[in-house]
């Protein structure tokens, strides 16, 4: 089964419809595409956020995402994966991350998208800095994200 993989880290926005069209690319063996978008929120624990800045580790970020995409394609029968992570400064409402997973059936696409997002949050080298009325500060990692990623660990 061919499973084209696209991994991009970019400053500019992405167009979800265009990325889905690129992924399907006139193929007729795909029965399900799951699309997850992560968007900059205007508040975090009731504190207002003015903007978010995303920093990454160039080189490692692409490789780390690639390793998790490889694991996803070995665990689920996927027909295509696209991961796009933006870096730079974002205002509330702007896109930050896109994960597309394609498969013949929905279960694999849903599970692979969730798996990829859980690992993106805990092991891909990106860091968020928040700007709010009270100043700027680095976002702290949440234990709930580690727990979400841990449930995919094979026992």
């Amino acid at each position, binding site marked *: 089964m061919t499973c084209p993989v696209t991994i991009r880290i970019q400053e500019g926005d992405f167009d979800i419809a265009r990325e889905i069209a690129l992924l399907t690319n006139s193929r007729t063996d795909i029965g399900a595409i799951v699309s997850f978008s*992560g968007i900059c929120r205007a508040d975090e624990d009731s504190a207002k956020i003015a903007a978010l800045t*995303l*920093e*990454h*580790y160039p*080189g*490692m970020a692409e*490789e*780390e995402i690639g390793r998790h995409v490889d694991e996803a394609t070995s665990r689920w029968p996927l027909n295509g994966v696209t991961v796009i*992570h933006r870096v730079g400064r974002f205002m509330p409402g702007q896109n*930050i*991350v896109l994960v597309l997973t394609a498969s013949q059936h929905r279960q694999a696409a849903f599970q692979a998208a969730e798996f990829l*997002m859980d690992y*993106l*949050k*805990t*092991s*891909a*080298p*990106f*860091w*968020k*800095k928040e700007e709010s009325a009270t100043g700027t500060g*680095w*976002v*702290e*990692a949440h234990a709930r994200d580690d727990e979400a990623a841990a449930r995919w660990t094979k026992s």
Partner: protein
Amino acid sequence: MKVKYFAWVRERVGKAEETIEPPPNVRTVEDLIAWLSGQGEAYAYAFEKPKVIRTAIDHAHVKSDAAIAGAREIAFFPPMTGG
């Protein structure tokens, strides 16, 4: 070897990358963090809580007991918060 720092580790150290030559008795990531901590106030501040610091060798996550021999690039950073 080349060392890179990211997010608040970079801000505390005051630089994004540098080339270092630790002495031969610095064998593991843990040793390297302890050695760097002794290189001045900025480093001591950046590495004041060594258990919080995450490390990658040549673009792959490693644990604190990993050997640094042969590493081309070592990166130190806080827990990740992307996605």
